[in-house]
């Protein structure tokens, strides 16, 4: 085995490994928003977040505009506070916007659905750190079944 040939083959091996790593980086891994583009943070209080998790998507009409950054419990009134990082590309949402926790598919994962409000004169756009007032909680299946049974019993 002359060393020239070994060197060429090792070089090919290294290139192959880099190509595989590049493929993983570009095609397999999510290009998350927090790493690449600039983001700003919005907060929302919910009564119940259901199965929402950190890194769940925030979608406007099905388009992902951001991700859930953290989920904490407000120490004052014991309601969950969800903070979301939204891409700076989409910073034109009016203050009358509302958010709700939705489920993709029947058994899919939960995400934050963001409905932009109407642009009316005198209403400002949402900016860094704002709280979204109008929120709708997650649909908890057990509560629904409970209500259904209760209404049947009446």
């Amino acid at each position, binding site marked *: *085995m002359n*060393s020239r040939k*070994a*060197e060429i*083959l*090792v070089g*090919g*091996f*290294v290139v*192959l*490994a880099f*190509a*595989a*790593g590049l*493929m*993983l*980086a570009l*095609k*397999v*891994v*999510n*290009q*998350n928003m927090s790493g690449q583009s600039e983001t700003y943070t919005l907060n929302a209080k919910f009564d119940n977040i259901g199965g929402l998790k950190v*890194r769940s*998507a925030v979608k406007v009409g099905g388009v*992902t505009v951001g991700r859930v950054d953290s989920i904490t419990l407000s120490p004052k009134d014991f309601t969950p506070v969800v903070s979301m990082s939204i891409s700076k590309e989409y910073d034109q949402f009016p203050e009358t916007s509302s958010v709700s926790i939705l489920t993709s*598919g029947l*058994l899919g994962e939960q995400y934050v659905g963001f409905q932009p409000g109407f642009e009316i004169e005198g209403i400002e756009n949402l900016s860094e750190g704002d709280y979204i007032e109008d929120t709708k909680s997650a649909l908890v299946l057990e509560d629904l079944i409970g209500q259904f049974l209760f209404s049947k019993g009446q």
Partner: protein
Amino acid sequence: MNWLASIGKVTIGKLSSFGRATLMLFGAIVAKPQFIKNVPLTIKQIYAVGVQSLLIVVVSGLFIGMVMALQGYTILVGYGAEGSLGPMVALSLLRELGPVVTALLFAGRAGSALTAEIGLMKATEQLSSLEMMAVDPLRRIIAPRFWAGMISMPMLAIIFSAVGILGGHVVGVDWLGVDSGSYWSIMQSTVDWDKDVVNGIIKSIVFGFVIVWIATYKGYDSIPTSEGISKATTETVVYSSLAVLGLDFVLTALMFGIE
């Protein structure tokens, strides 16, 4: 009293062989390292250890990805969730199967060859002749093989995962008719670079370290007869497979267990 003495003998034997292994590692890579001088030797060893393991790694990666797509599809399609085939294949390959299966193949393909080579060098007294010529066999023989194994192993694991994901694509999308867009896009929204890919690479580096350590030590410490070399080669494969599987549990628990 006899059984107590035999327990003591076994314990002392194990401990002293562990100590010799650590001393060998120390002498080979920590004490007076010669990185520049070792580069050509290491490249030659990467050829022997890495490039020659490429075929078995690529072929088994392809087939494992294909089998996983096939098995996953038959179960997921029952829930109408065949779109989740992509993340299932990618996550199991990147987190577990990539590092672990590559490590097992690596132990069988490269580890056993290392042990046999070094053991035969010892049996034919090549190691002693090196010492006679004032060349440290630890630095000349062990160190390049060690670095070559540690460099090759993560690269092989990355190639394994990438090929497996492509194999899953071939079966899932081209054969079974899962939508190509959802295969890639749901995979992209689920797989995380730091959490999944980097942890898999860390795993494979640890496995590479353990396998080459066991392989070089078993060769270096083998009884210099044909019987001794065959025993050392077997022990390399058995011990490094067990070490990889045991360590994999510990590493998984540390990386993914607690959130």
